[in-house]
């Protein structure tokens, strides 16, 4: 672990990086919960009155939509994390 820099500016930078990371993390987890728990479970019966491509919407979220959303979320997260890594200069070579 010789690579750990203990000076104050490096520590500040690490804290700022972690703060940005956690902010993104909460956004991703919020969206994750919205497409699955909220649209697919809590509000599923209300959404079932709306139709999307022949599907009742709540049922669609539970059996199709949430899965598509998860895929998009992970790639979006990976891209945003890449930007945060570079912003704080902690990215891999």
């Amino acid at each position, binding site marked *: 672990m010789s690579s750990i820099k203990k000076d104050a500016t490096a520590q500040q930078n*690490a804290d700022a990086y972690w703060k940005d990371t956690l902010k993104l993390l909460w956004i991703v987890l919020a969206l994750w919960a919205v497409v699955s728990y909220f649209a697919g*479970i809590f509000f599923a019966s209300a959404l079932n009155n709306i139709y999307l491509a022949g599907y009742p919407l709540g*049922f669609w979220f539970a059996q199709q939509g949430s899965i598509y959303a998860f895929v998009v979320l992970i790639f979006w997260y990976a891209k945003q994390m890449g930007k945060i890594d570079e912003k704080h200069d902690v990215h891999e070579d």
Partner: protein
Amino acid sequence: MDDLKLMTYIAVGLSFALYIGVAIWARAGSTKDYYVAGGGVHPVVNGMATAADWMSAASFISMAGLISAMGYDGSVYLMGWTGGYVLLAVLLAPYLRKFGKFTVPEFIGDRYYSQTARIVAVVCLIFISFTYVAGQMRGVGIVFSRFLEVEITTGLIIGMGLVFFYAVLGGMKGITYTQVAQYVVLIFAYTIPAIFISLQLTGHLLPQTGLGADLANGQPFLARLNTVVTDLGFANYTTSSKSMIDIVAITFALMAGTAGLPHVIVRFFTVPKVRDARSSAGWALVFIAILYTTAPAVGAMARYNVIATVNTHVAQDKPLLAQEANLKAEDRPEWMKRWEKTGLLKWDDKNGDGLIQHYNDKSKNPEVLAKAEALGYKGNELTVDRDIMVLANPEVAQLPNWVIALVAAGGIAAALSTAAGLLLVISAAISHDLLKGVIAPNISEKSELMAGRAASAVAVLVAGYLGYNPPGFVAEVVAFAFGLACASLFPTILLGIFSKKMNTQGAIAGMLTGLIFTFCYILYFKGIFITPMAENIPANWLFGISPEGIGSVGAILNVVVALIVSRVTPACPDHIQHLVEDIRTPRGAGTAHAH
């Protein structure tokens, strides 16, 4: 030998030859090859291998059947087993990759600076992995016995021999590339029949849009299916009949359980960089989503087709409860007779009229029951095991024989790829964590590799035995594995990354609380090894949460106990807090395991 059986032998034989060829080409030379495939696997390749590793006999064989029987309530499996990848990508995989070691117990042991924590993690891992692998071996046995008409035992021995060959020889490197081949086989085997069936019913090429589309007569498929099942006294297909809290608990337990399964986590140790671990989780989910978004269509359409087989009024839009609608037993198709032989499909002429009456004789709708009684029905006469829906699907839809043969090869691929991944984490836990880590730290790399191979040989034999004498039904055993992963490993790893102050006492107390609580709750209602101590009904459950969902409560208990204990015991030492800070930043991942 008939045409179908011959074709099945060819399909299964060719796929086996492919796996063996790949395994020889990619065999392991060093411990790094053996545990993490040399650490240089491309993220897309790793994603595909992860998908095969993850999608087991339960996903391939059982899931669509569960959805078919449960309708909307089957969504817990769809959301639960895919949503876990979001947790993996944002909470665990990149940080564990940065840590850069070979196994999950190794992370827990180093992070919590304690051999005891490492051993507790090994115990959790072995329990989770063995329960899971027993289900896979059982799946191999079922496919062999039905399609190749050999004894389940013979099927098991062939499966064990094959897994032994490439897991023991090839280690993680062999497994990775065989899993890629197995993914290709299983995804074709799953989607081709689904495409055929979707085309037959709705004219849509994609099952994903076919499920929402209209039947040939212009009626929306899902609306027609709802009418069919409710007219026969079953629950509405597209709405829920479970309590909401239980659905939430099961979904969360499956999500966190997925993220906490050791054989899935270690796949992310094989990619070169931290950023690859993030994108690789996305690729894994892309490959998984192809099957998981097809499964709802397979389930719903199989339900419709099976009912339509025995009730001729389904396709004609006439009242379903009518004697002239019911199929004459002597006219029943060949596939029904074939499955009757396995005991997984049963027809019983309760009222002795030679017709097959299929309806819900325990319906909550008194009108259905009264009408059935007036017609002289004496109870439901057809029972179809949920586990045969996917396997029987191409036969039900009268697809060509080569499609049926392909499904058999796909089912075996799904079971073998998962079994191999599980056996590898078991062997790594024994040779790397127990032997090298605790018992004999000075062992040479060559001896460690030998010990790893010996451990996986023993693990194969135990898995085979468990597959032959399963400690309960496959679905029950799988609920066990997820509940335990959710309640023990997932929270402990999570706290290890996100709470710098979490110490060894807190982690061990939390892990044991989660593990023991979940273990006892499932045992209390399901028995498995003992006689259940209470009837497994909602009225008896804690907060109305079923044994399948109790891992969620176990995870919360784990976190609460860990936080409380860590506040009243000696603080986490400085060098560990620095280690955690180091794990959190990506730079330097390549050299991390040199220290």
